[in-house]
């Protein structure tokens, strides 16, 4: 007796169903837009700037002050249901006049849609945009990275500090175009500053004991911490 082989392909609803079509021969510009773009334009005419289709993906430009509103609607609306934030990043162009763009990659798993939301920030003004952390908790580290590399302040973020570079890093924001490839300070000064970091400054066990995580620690570790034992080394 042989069992017929019926693979369950990713995205197919049931065994034997046709696999989802793989996009081929996509034009650089134009093509079928994501229906959410028209929905945003209809729902938020004051915030919507423009939308375009690049390589099959839809980019929607919105005003930076309305990002939270649009994202919350995209997340909550039953016809959109963008339940997954894949990335928050930023793009700076070499042309100084061209604004810096903050990019949110949103994915709707129920409707199999991908939407790239962009907001342009003028570089002559403070780079401030609202955080989407209240909507997607996963935006926490993504926005911290974006702040670390580009210096964009996300208002409403619970813990906005550097994540890749150390917290006392003083040379600026490395992915900005005006940042020299080798950094601003001399190698000796960079090394001197790096060696002066206290590696256990923030993440020591003593800190954990102060935080709410104390109750979740194993029994022996709680006993040791309560006895004042140093566990850093």
């Amino acid at each position: 007796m042989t069992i017929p082989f019926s693979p369950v392909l990713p995205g197919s609803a049931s065994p034997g169903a046709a696999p989802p079509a793989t996009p081929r021969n996509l034009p650089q510009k134009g093509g079928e837009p994501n229906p959410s773009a028209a929905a945003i334009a209809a729902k938020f005419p004051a915030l919507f700037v423009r939308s375009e289709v690049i390589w099959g993906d839809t980019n929607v430009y919105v005003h930076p002050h309305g990002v939270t509103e649009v994202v919350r609607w995209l997340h909550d609306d039953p016809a959109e249901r963008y339940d997954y934030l894949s990335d928050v990043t930023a793009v700076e162009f070499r042309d100084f006049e061209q604004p810096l763009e903050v990019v949110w990659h949103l994915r709707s798993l129920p409707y199999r849609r991908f939407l790239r939301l962009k907001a342009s920030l003028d570089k002559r003004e403070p780079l401030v945009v609202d955080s989407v952390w209240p909507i997607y908790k996963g935006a926490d580290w993504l926005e911290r990275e974006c702040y670390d590399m580009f210096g964009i302040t996300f208002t409403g973020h619970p813990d906005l500090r550097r994540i890749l570079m150390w917290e006392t890093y003083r040379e600026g924001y490395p992915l900005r175009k005006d940042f020299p490839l080798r950094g601003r300070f001399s190698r000796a000064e960079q090394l001197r500053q790096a060696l002066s970091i206290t590696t256990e400054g923030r993440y020591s066990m003593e800190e954990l004991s102060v935080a709410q995580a104390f109750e979740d620690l194993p029994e022996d570790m709680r006993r040791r911490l309560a006895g004042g034992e140093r566990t850093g080394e």
Partner: protein
Amino acid sequence: MGLSQTTPHGTTTTTFEPSNQESWVATRLDFLVNWSRSKSLWPMPFGTACCAIEFMATAATRFDLARFGMERMSFSPRQADVLICAGRVPFKLAPVLRRIWQQMPQPKWCISMGACASTGGMFDNYAVVQGIDTIIPVDVYVPGCPPRPEGLLYGIMMLQEKVMREKMSDNVIRNEMEPDPKSGLYIPPSRIDELSEPFGNSVQQTRSGL
């Protein structure tokens, strides 16, 4: 210690025959200590990048690091003899590497494995230390990107040879290098800048913005 002989082919070999030694008791003891140290080095792997993959291959069956007495990887610096830094070290990791080196008891040695650990390699940018010899003293540099296991084995054999030449009467090499308390560096800043100068094609790549 030992007698260097130059063969007709021009290569120099050192033999450790009893008749070659300087003072019999001390040098016999030296030989015994060095022999036991060099044949039972316990490495502390500090693997941060692809060099660590080659290091794992070196420790695995085909190349078998255990043949050189390095059977036991010491994942605690307190029981380690030789720090093998395999991979690039970003500035954020510099104090960690320094701390690990300071936690290792004497006698201790360091192998800088690969181009990135030795010079910063292709990562001549704002985030990567330009050679771990600016943080800790290094005994053997293994070139390569990444070095093949044979290369690392050759470096380890060079280190063993270095250990065999040590003398108990000359303990300067065992002095702990104390960094300058103000700057935390143990070599002058000008020397670090000189060592970290861009070279080769990298000179043309100072893209300093607009």
